[in-house]
């Protein structure tokens, strides 16, 4: 039981850094975050790691384990090939602050662009579970930002200025599909959050620790709504005929 595992962990800051090797004794059921804590407590007291709940509920401990974006608190050592060293690196799409901690403040700035929930005056606060079910999936998001990290539009093409990223499509989906919300956000989706940059290659869905079907249930339905308002020639023509502009 007391075999050792080797970890190669990125140590450094915005100026640069390198992978450093650490030995950690393995216990049953151990996760990568446990190993990081062990290293903090015994070898590198200043190893910077974000974490809170250690139960997959807060989304703080995101990193790239053997190149895959993961929550370190849910990545078990017995699922990793321990014959070779385990590599732990910070999320690539965000600037490194120190070691495994990255600057994710861009996400909070994007969130501010999204108009909040708004219900019509005098609405009766009754909702059907059927209608609530769909939105509750999006509300599961724990903001670990792994989807933002893996999305190639941000990761490889650095479209932070033009593109909001999967997390915020999930957030907008939660508002747009809220049974009592009366704000249209298709303009925002098209122009501010750049949903057209998404080429639905689904990496966000693959990494989501909450199993939210980001692409199929949030992004594609939102793309369809944007099409309704902006890219559907027949609807456009009908709107012209009626002389009114629905939500656009």
């Amino acid at each position, binding site marked *: 039981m007391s075999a050792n595992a080797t970890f190669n962990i990125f140590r450094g800051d915005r100026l640069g850094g390198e992978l450093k090797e650490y030995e950690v004794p393995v216990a049953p059921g151990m996760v990568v975050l446990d190993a990081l804590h062990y290293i903090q407590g015994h070898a590198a007291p200043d190893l910077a790691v974000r974490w809170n709940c250690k139960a997959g509920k807060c989304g703080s401990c995101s990193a790239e384990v053997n190149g895959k974006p993961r929550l370190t608190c849910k990545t078990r050592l017995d699922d990793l*090939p321990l014959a070779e060293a385990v590599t732990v690196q910070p999320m*690539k799409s965000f600037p490194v602050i120190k070691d495994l901690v990255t600057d994710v403040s861009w996400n909070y700035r994007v969130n501010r662009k999204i108009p909040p929930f708004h219900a019509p005056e005098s609405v009766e606060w009754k909702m059907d579970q059927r209608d609530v079910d769909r939105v509750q999936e999006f509300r599961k998001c724990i903001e670990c930002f792994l989807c933002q990290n893996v999305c190639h539009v941000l990761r*490889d093409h650095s*479209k932070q200025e033009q593109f909001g990223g999967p997390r915020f499509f999930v957030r907008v989906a939660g508002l*747009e599909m809220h049974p009592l919300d009366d704000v249209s956000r298709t303009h925002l989706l098209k122009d501010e959050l750049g949903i057209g940059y*998404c080429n639905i290659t689904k990496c966000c869905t693959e990494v989501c620790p909450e199993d939210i079907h980001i692409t199929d249930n949030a992004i594609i339905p939102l793309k*369809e709504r944007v099409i309704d308002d902006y890219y559907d020639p027949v609807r456009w023509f009908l709107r012209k005929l009626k002389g009114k502009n629905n939500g656009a």
Partner: protein
Amino acid sequence: MAEPGTAVHRGRFGASMRRDAWWVELVPVVLVLGAFSIYATWRAFENNYYEWGPYLSPFYSPLLQPSWWPFSPAILILGGPLGFRATCYYYRKAYYRAFFLDPPACAVGEARSHRYRGETAFPFILQNLHRYFLYVALIFLIILWYDAVHAFFFDGRFGVGVGSLVLLTNIILLSFYTVSCHSLRHIVGGKVDCFSCVAFGGPRHKTWKGLSFLNEHHMLFAWLSLFSVGLADLYVRLVASATIQDLRLL
């Protein structure tokens, strides 16, 4: 955005710390889509062996043969199904990854820096027309159902040949592929925020739930129906060119 200063983390093509063989999932997509495209193009231009007895190849249905058209009739109609598949949300994922390497796989670096505009500009902005290809595909579906039923009538009398079953299987798989479409799911109920507030909300919700279930398997139906449509054509070709004999079962 900033990079941590390790060489291993830079965005070279294929650069990744992933330990698994991430490229493995690209290989079948490249091979199958590639082979299908070559086969379909060849068959469309061949202009021969598309009909035998009650069987009509799906590549040539509906069979339009206007006198002013000198080429293969397939070319007149292939745009419909081709457009439906080309703009399909699943196939987009598959070919953006396998053929455009954008991205090649999750958390794997892309080929040098290129100007990326996604689906915001020509040509890919046309993907937004998927729903119109869906409408066309639904018409094709009716026609192909007619063909499939027709394939059970030999000289006006009911009968079953292997070809009848091949065409029937094909149209069933095509039906699953078509109704599991994301755009259809949107039109049927996806656009509704409050099923309990709209007319026919109950039935719409049920339909939407059903289509959502099928939609989860859209990828599976996409591949199965691709194989079935290719094999159905191949079967008709083999029989029509007398390479093999159609086996009558009934």
